[in-house]
């Protein structure tokens, strides 16, 4: 009974099709009531899930426990290794809960091997700017590193940058569009000061870095380690938005910021 295009329509909704297919699918939906309904349903389900799903966080107790377990694991002496060889692989000595004893002992290593197998071929990207952006983004996710000035009001964030960086980026709250302004932060990129505007999108943090452009070209957009990097220029500033949110979601924030930048400059 379903329209034969329904999976493609879903792929379009998920931002998984190229521009040409997108146009085709939009044209199809104009004439297919079923697919129009489908698009509306997809949007409703997404909105309800993002509104209501519990964005649970790992508890401090779990973090502490993991950190302790890693200490023990990393400090495992050579002697320990030898003992393990003698006793065979199924000798987990550091389980936190007896429940897991045995359950995960033998199988895990091969599971990891399988998980690793198809990752080995991918090389690390060597652009130093992307490396810096990646580590600045990751640093920001550590507790207390995220925000210097906490505010959902751009009239607070923008003047704060004036006093703390040489950079005056576009700042706005886009809560209705799903991007909530959380605040701002000063950071260093390529040895110069940069302004970072922080947004929250569902369970995800988005850092929008900006720094004084020097006319050099920007790297191409890239995805790495589960993070997406989107670059653009606006006025005399270079921008990069970084997040593990979906790429199409990140692009919609970038478009909002680009439009705002163009309006600010009176274009």
């Amino acid at each position, binding site marked *: 009974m379903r329209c034969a295009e*329904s*999976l493609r329509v*879903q*792929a379009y909704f*998920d*931002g*998984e099709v190229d521009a040409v297919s997108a146009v085709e699918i939009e044209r199809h939906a104009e004439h297919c009531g079923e697919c129009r309904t489908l698009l509306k349903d*997809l949007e*409703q389900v997404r909105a*309800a*899930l*993002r*509104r*209501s*799903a*519990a*964005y*649970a*966080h*790992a*508890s401090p107790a*779990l*973090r502490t*426990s*993991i950190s302790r*377990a*890693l200490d023990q*694991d*990393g400090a495992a002496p050579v002697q320990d290794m030898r003992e393990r060889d003698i006793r065979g692989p199924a000798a987990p000595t550091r389980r*936190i*809960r007896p*429940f*897991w004893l*045995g*359950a*995960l002992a033998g*199988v*895990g*290593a091969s*599971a*990891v091997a*399988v*998980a690793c197998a198809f*990752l*080995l071929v*991918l*090389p*690390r990207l060597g652009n130093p700017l992307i490396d810096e952006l990646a580590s600045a983004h*990751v640093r920001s996710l550590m507790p207390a590193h995220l925000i210097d000035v906490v505010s959902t009001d751009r009239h607070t964030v923008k003047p704060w940058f004036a006093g703390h960086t040489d950079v005056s980026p576009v700042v706005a709250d886009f809560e209705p569009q799903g991007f909530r302004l*959380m605040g701002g932060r000063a950071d260093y990129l390529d040895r110069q000061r940069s302004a970072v505007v922080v947004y*929250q999108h*569902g*369970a*995800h943090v988005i850092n929008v870095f900006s720094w004084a452009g020097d006319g050099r070209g920007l790297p191409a957009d890239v*995805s790495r*380690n*589960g993070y997406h990097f989107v670059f653009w220029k606006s006025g005399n500033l270079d921008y990069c938005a970084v997040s*593990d949110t*979906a790429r199409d*979601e990140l692009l919609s924030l970038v478009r909002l910021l680009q439009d705002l930048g163009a309006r600010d400059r009176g274009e």
Partner: protein
Amino acid sequence: MDEKRARFEAEVLPHLDAAYRFARWLTHAPADADDIVQEAVLRAFRGFDALRGSDVKAWLLAIVRNCHSTAFRQRQRRAFVPLPEENDAQYGYAMRSNIPDPQDESIRRDERRTLEKLIAALPEEHRTVLMLREIEEMDYRQIAQVTSVPIGTVMSRLARSRAALKARWLLETAGEPRAVR
């Protein structure tokens, strides 16, 4: 701290919350999720030397899934008990500076409870792809990597879980004026 540990903390631990959320959807029980995540992180650490570049988040979540299915096979499934509020308060940590408007709060709480029940009722392989897509916002390729199925399967599971959720949501909220906006 040695170099491997430092690199691991920088590249893998930022995805700990995602791993924890994923484990919560797999297990329903917060304490089990803690165990699975801890086990998965240790395994990830041991396998980390072999990892060069690539999608760390999808890699970590694939290990979480493997740890869960291993544990799951090893024991009888506990009867599912919907998460009570206290458990959320104890184990769930709200998003930083996400201060909801108090008026919205009770509506959201009702909606959340209904949705959690409906999500929990989905078959695990459907629930998994749905949450990876809508909450973790992973793309099809990443979801395929985490769940070890072809992209075509990801697409059909997504379609089915979304349709099922929508249909049950309509049933559940029939007669409530503010149900479907």
